[in-house]
C-alpha cells in the first residue's frame, strides 16, 4: 500500500462542498472560489509484525543505550510508566500499543528475574483512568496480575509522600518527580506519539511531575514563546522539558524510552468518507455521509456523543523505537513528520477549521467550551511548522456546537473556571496572575483529582494557556453554529452560518480575504513556507 502525501486544493467552481467536522456531526460547506483546503497525507504503511518490531527495537536501541535485556537485573526496582487516556485519539482497537510494548518489556523482565515491577499511568494533572480504560490500554492479563496487588498505580501529583524533590535546573526550574520512578533503578517509559508535541523528555518530566514542577513550562509566557509547541525546535515548552529531562538524567534517574507512532487512520471503514477527499467520494461514501450525518443530527445529543465516544480507531503501529530519550524522539519525530506534514505556500487572512467531538481531555466525556477553545486555538492552530496558517491579525473561524455542557465528574474545576474566571477575564496573563494559584491549591479540587476522576483544579487554566499563542496572534475568532452564550463567554463571536462568519471576518481582515481550510481530522501538520 502506498500512501499519497498531503495536498493543498485550490477551490474552483467545480469543487464539491467541503466536509467540516461540527462536534458530534458534520457540515458540508461551499468555500469561496480561490480558497485553499489543506488535506492530510493518507495513512502511511504500518508494521506488518508489530511484536517482532518491538522485540527488534528493544534489542537494538537507539543512542548510547544498551539493549533493554542488558539493563534488567534480578533484585532491581523497575518502573514502567505509560501514557494515559489522552492518547491516542480516538482510543485504538485492542491490542493497544502500550499493551504490546509492556507485555514485551514484562517478558524480558521475567526472563531476567526482575520481581519488583510497578506500572504507573503517567497522569501528570490529568484525571485518573477507570478500570475499563486501564484494561483497554494494558490488556486484561497485565491488569489482572498487577492491579489486585497494588502494582498498577496512577501517578498522584498531590500526594506529598509519593513525590520527591530533586532540585532546580540551571534555568531555575523546580524538578519534582514521582517517588517510585525517581527511586527506581530503571524507568521504562512507554508512549504513543500522535502529534509531535508528545514524547521525548516531556514523557517523564511532565507525565510524572507535580504542579510545582509543571508550572515552569505550563504557563502563558512559555506558550506564547512556543511557535509552535508542535515544533520542538521552536518550542519553549520543549526546551524546558528537555532541561528537566537532562537534569533528571544527571540526578541518576535512568530512563529507557520506548516510543511508538500510529498511522493516520482514525475512523472505521464504515465512515471511510471522513478520510477521503470529497471529489473522490464514491456512491457508498455519499450514502455513508448522508446516513451518518442524518442519524447523528436526529439522535439525542447524549446518544450521538456516546456513539462517537465508543469508536475504537483502526489506526495501527507505524513505527517503534527504543533506547536513549533524545535519540528515540528524533527518530519518532521523523516518522511523525512523514505522516503529518503538508507543505503550504504562505499564510491566509482567514483560517477555517471544523472541530470534532474529541480532544485529548474528553475521552469518554463531553467537550466543554474551554476544551473547544483548547482544541481550536491550542492543538489545531499550533499544528504548523515555520509560521501559522493564518497571518498575524487574521481571523480563525471554528465550526463547533460549543454546548454549555460540562462533565461534572471529569471537569469540576472547568465549571467554576467557566463561571467565575472567564466571566471576569479571557486574558491568559490576567487569569494566571489572579486566579491560577487559588484553583491549583483548592483542597476540594485536589480531593477530587486524587480520589475521583477529575482533572486537577489548575487544568482549565493550562487549556486556556494552550491557546495563548493563538490569542496573541489572531485578530478575531468566530465560532459557527455554537451556543451563543457559551461562545461569547469564551470571548469569541458567534455566527449562524459560515457565510455570516466570513462577512464578519471581512470587517477585521478587509475585503476579498484569502482563506485556508484546515481539513482535519485525520490530523495533519502544515509546513508553512
Amino acid at each position, binding site marked *: 500500500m502506498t500512501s499519497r502525501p498531503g495536498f493543498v486544493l485550490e477551490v474552483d467552481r467545480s469543487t464539491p462542498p467541503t466536509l467540516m467536522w461540527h462536534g458530534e456531526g458534520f457540515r458540508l460547506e461551499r468555500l469561496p472560489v480561490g480558497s485553499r483546503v489543506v488535506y492530510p497525507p493518507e495513512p502511511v504503511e504500518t508494521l506488518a509484525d508489530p511484536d517482532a518490531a518491538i522485540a527488534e527495537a528493544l534489542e537494538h536501541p537507539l543512542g548510547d543505550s544498551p539493549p533493554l535485556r542488558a539493563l534488567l537485573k534480578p533484585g532491581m526496582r523497575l518502573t514502567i510508566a505509560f501514557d494515559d487516556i489522552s492518547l491516542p485519539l480516538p482510543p485504538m482497537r485492542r491490542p493497544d500499543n502500550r499493551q504490546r510494548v509492556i507485555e514485551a518489556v514484562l517478558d524480558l523482565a521475567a526472563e531476567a528475574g526482575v520481581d519488583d515491577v510497578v506500572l504507573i499511568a503517567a497522569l501528570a494533572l490529568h484525571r485518573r483512568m477507570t478500570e475499563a480504560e486501564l484494561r483497554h490500554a494494558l490488556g486484561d492479563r497485565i491488569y489482572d496480575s498487577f492491579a489486585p496487588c497494588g502494582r498498577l498505580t496512577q501517578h498522584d501529583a498531590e500526594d506529598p509522600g509519593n513525590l520527591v524533590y530533586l532540585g532546580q535546573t540551571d534555568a531555575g526550574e523546580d524538578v519534582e518527580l514521582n517517588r517510585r520512578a525517581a527511586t527506581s533503578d530503571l524507568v521504562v517509559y512507554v508512549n504513543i506519539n500522535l502529534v509531535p508535541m508528545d514524547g521525548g523528555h516531556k514523557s517523564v518530566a511532565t507525565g510524572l511531575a507535580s504542579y510545582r514542577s509543571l508550572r515552569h513550562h505550563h504557563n502563558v509566557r512559555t506558550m506564547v514563546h512556543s511557535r509552535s509547541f508542535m515544533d520542538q525546535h521552536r518550542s519553549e515548552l520543549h526546551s524546558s522539558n528537555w532541561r528537566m529531562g537532562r537534569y533528571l538524567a544527571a540526578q541518576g534517574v535512568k530512563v529507557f524510552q520506548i516510543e511508538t507512532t500510529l498511522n493516520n487512520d482514525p475512523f472505521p471503514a464504515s465512515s471511510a468518507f471522513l478520510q477521503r477527499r470529497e471529489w473522490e467520494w464514491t456512491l457508498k461514501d455519499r450514502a455513508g455521509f448522508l446516513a451518518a450525518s442524518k442519524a447523528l443530527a436526529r439522535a439525542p445529543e447524549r446518544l450521538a456523543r456516546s456513539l462517537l465516544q465508543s469508536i475504537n480507531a483502526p489506526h495501527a503501529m507505524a513505527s517503534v523505537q527504543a533506547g536513549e530519550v533524545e535519540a528515540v524522539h528524533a527518530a519518532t519525530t521523523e516518522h511523525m513528520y512523514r505522516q503529518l506534514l503538508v507543505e503550504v505556500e504562505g499564510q491566509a487572512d482567514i483560517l477555517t477549521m471544523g472541530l470534532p467531538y474529541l480532544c485529548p481531555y474528553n475521552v469518554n*466525556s*463531553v467537550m466543554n467550551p474551554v476544551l473547544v477553545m483548547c482544541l481550536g486555538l491550542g492543538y489545531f492552530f499550533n499544528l504548523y511548522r515555520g509560521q501559522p496558517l493564518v497571518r498575524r491579525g487574521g481571523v480563525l473561524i471554528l465550526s463547533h456546537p460549543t*454546548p454549555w*455542557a*460540562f462533565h*461534572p*465528574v471529569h471537569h469540576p474545576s472547568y*465549571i467554576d473556571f467557566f463561571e467565575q474566571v472567564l466571566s471576569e477575564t479571557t486574558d491568559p496573563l490576567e487569569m494566571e496572575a489572579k486566579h491560577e494559584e487559588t484553583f491549583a491549591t483548592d483542597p476540594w479540587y485536589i480531593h477530587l483529582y486524587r*480520589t*475521583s476522576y477529575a482533572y486537577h483544579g489548575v487544568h482549565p487554566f493550562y487549556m486556556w494557556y494552550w491557546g495563548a499563542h493563538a490569542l496573541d496572534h489572531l485578530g478575531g475568532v468566530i465560532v459557527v453554529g455554537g451556543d451563543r452564550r457559551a461562545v461569547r463567554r469564551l470571548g469569541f463571536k458567534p455566527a449562524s452560518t459560515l457565510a455570516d462568519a466570513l462577512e464578519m471576518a471581512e470587517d477585521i481582515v478587509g475585503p476579498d480575504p484569502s482563506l485556508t481550510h484546515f481539513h482535519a481530522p485525520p490530523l495533519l501538520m502544515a509546513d508553512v513556507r
Partner: protein
Amino acid sequence: MIAGALAGRRVGVTGATGFLGTALVERLLRCVPDCEVAVLVRPGRRYDAAQRTRREIIHNNCFDRLREQWGERFDSEVGRRLLVMAGDVSADGLGLDEAGRQVLAGCDVVVHSAATVSFDAPLDTAVEVNLLGPSRVAKAMADLAAGGDPTTRGAAHLIAVSTAYVAGTRRGDAPEALLAETPYATDADWRAEVAAARRVRSDLDAESRTPSRLARFTREARRELGAAGVPLLSERAEKARSDWVREGLVEAGRARAQALGWPDAYAYTKALGERALLDNRGTVPVTIVRPSIIESSLAEPRPGWIRGFRMAEPVIISYAKGLLTQFPGLPEGILDVIPVDLVVAAILAVAARGPDPSGPSVYHVASGARNPLRYDQLQQLVESWFKEHPLYDGRGQPIVIPEWSFPDRGKVSRQLTRATKGLAWAERVSRSLPVRGQRARITATLEERRSEGERALGYVRLYGSYAETEARFRVDRLMALWEALGPEDRDRFCFDPAVVDWPGYVHGVHLPSVVAHARVRTSPGRRSGPSREERGRRAVLSPSRELAVFDLENTLVASNVVETFAWLATRHLGTGGRVAVAGRLLAAAPSLLAMDRRDRGDFLRSFYRRYEGAPVDQLRQDAWELASSLLLARSFPAGIARVRRHRALGHRTVLITGALDFLVAPLAPLFDDIICARLAEQGGHFTGELVQVPPTGEARALAMADYCARHGLSLAESVAYADSSSDLPMLEAVGHPVAVNAEPKLATIARKRGWHTEDWGRAEGASRVLVPMGPRARSGPGGRRGWRPGPEGGR
C-alpha cells in the same frame, strides 16, 4: 354652633381604631375646642389599651394635619384631651375597670361606632359585637347614670352608628325610622337569634372534634405539608379545624341573614342590634345614625384619607389588575357611597343637637336619595381612570382592564365557581406529580390563581347585593338637620350629600387614594436594582451568616438511598443476581414510596435492613467508586459551588442527610460536619440496624438547634437548603430558608412565605444512567464476591 355646643364636653368613642372612629376622634380634637375625647380600646395581646391608642390612632396619618397645625404642643394637647378606657364591647359592663367607669361616667355623649365591619365575620362574633355591642354600651351608661352622683346630670346621649343596609334587600324608599316602624319590619326575636348563634358555635365545635372530621383535617394537613413531622402536621390540622369551624359560622351567618332578608350577617346583626338597643337602653337617650357605604374622605382631614381596605377597594384593585373580569350589578342601580368626613360631620351635628326629646330617632347618612351615583356611572368612571392610569404587571407592562357587561350575580358566580373548581383540581393533580423546581412552581402558580379566583368569588358573594340594591335611603331628617345649621357650621361641618361631585370625587380623590394604599405598580418599566432572586441570594450569602446546612438528596445530588443501595448491591453480582436485585426493588417500589411519604425515619430504618450481611470493607471501598459514578455524576454543580461559597465566606457548612456515613465520606471535604446515618457492624459485616439514626422531620430542626447551641451559632443567622416538605421543620427553624428544586408542596409553601428558591440542575454533559446498577467490577480487590442483600423492608 356645633363646635360651641360640644366645646368643653367629653365625648366617648368606641371603635376608635376603626375607619370611622379614627376620623371622628381627629375631627373632635381638631374642630371642637377644648372638648375631651374618651376612647374605649380593647387591650391587645402585645400592647395595652394606651399603647394601642398611640400606635393605631394617634400615629395614623389621619393626624398628620393636626400634628402640623399644633406643632410642638401636639403631644401635650393629645395627652390632655384624649382619655383612654381599657375595655371591650363584647364583654358585659364593657370590661371596664373603676378608672374606666369614671371616665365613661363623665361623658356627655357616647358615639358607639365599634363593629365588626367585615361582611363575612363568623356569626357568633358578629352577634357578640354588632348585635349585643350597642346594648352593652347603653347598659353600662344606664348603670353609671343610676349609680352615679345624683347631683350630676342624667344619662349621657348615646349615638349608635348602624348601617343603612339594615333595610335589607328590599326595594323602594327606606325611611329614617326605627325598624319596628318601617313597613319591612321582621319579627325576628333578637334573643332567640343570640342563643341560636351561640349554639351554632358549640355545635360546630363539637362536630369538628369527631374522629372522622379530625381524620379529615389530618389528611388535609398531610396533603399540604407531606411528611413534615408530627408537630407541624398537628399544628396545621388544628388550624384546619378552627378554620372549618369559622367557615361554618360564616356560612351559618350568611344563610341566616339571607333567610331573614338581609344581604349578609353584618346587616342582619346590625339590624337586630338596633332592636336590642331599643329594648335595653333603659333611661339612656339614643340616636341611631345609619351611614351607607363609607369611603375615603372628600376633604377632611385631607381629600382621599382612608383607613383599612375593605369593600369597594379590593374589588376595584382586583378589577384594575385584570383579576376580576366581571362583577354583578344592575347598571341603573344605585351604589350608595358616602365619604367618611360627611358621616363624621353628621354625627357631630347630631351630638351637638342632642337627643330627640320624643324618644329614639334615626338619621341616614347616604347619598342615594339626594345625589345618586349609578352603578354604571361608577363603572365608567373607574374604567376611564384606569385606562389613563393603568396598573403595571411584574414585567412592567400595563395591565389591560376587562370589559364590563353587568351580568347577573348567578352567572358570574357560576363562572367563577367553575373556574375555581377547575383550578383546585389542577392544583391537586400537579401537587401529586413527581416534578421539582421550575415545574413544581406551576403548583404554586395554580394555587395563587385559585385563591385569586376564590377571593373574586368571595367579593361577588359578599358585595354583590350592594351593587344590586334597589333601596333608596331617604335623608329627609338629615336634610332638616342640615337646613337648621348656620353658614359657619355648614362650612366647617358639611354633611350635605349633594356637595359630592361624583366624577371629581372618584377620579380626583378616591381612586388615587385606593391605588396609593394598594401597594401596586403604577409605573412602567422594569424595577431598577437587583431582582428578587438576586436580593434573596445576597441575603443568603451575607458575610454575617454563620451556618449553612444542606440536605443531600435532590438538593445537592439527584440520587436517593434506593439507587445507592442498588448500585452497591449489584456491583459484584453476575447477571442473574443483578436482575434479581433490580426485580425485588421494583416490586417493592410502591410500598417503599408509600412508606417514605408517611414517615421518612421509618422508611430509612426499614430500608437499611437490606444491608444486613453486607461486607463492611468492600462497601467502604466501593463507596469511593460510587461517589464518582453516581453521586458526583448526578451532582448539581451550582449546589456544590454554593457549599464552597459559604465556606469561602467563613460560614460553617453542615450536611444533614439520611444517607449512610460511608457513602457520604467522599463528600466530607465540602463540609465542616456531617450528620448522617450509621449502620451497626459485627464481624466485618453490617447487621442492618442503625447505630446512629438520621434526624428526619422535626428531629432535623432539633438537631440543628442542638448543633447551633453546641457551636455557639445563631439559628437566625443560619441558612438551610432543602428540597422537600419533610424538611419543613428545619427550614422553619432557621432565619434564611432556601427551597432547592422544591417539590410541589414545598414550592407552594415557599411561594407563600416568600422564601428564596433555587433551581439547581445536573450538569449538561453528565452521562445519564437509567438503571442504577454498579458498573460490574470484574475483579474485586482480593477477588471478593458479591453479597446477598438482606431481607426486604424490615421484619
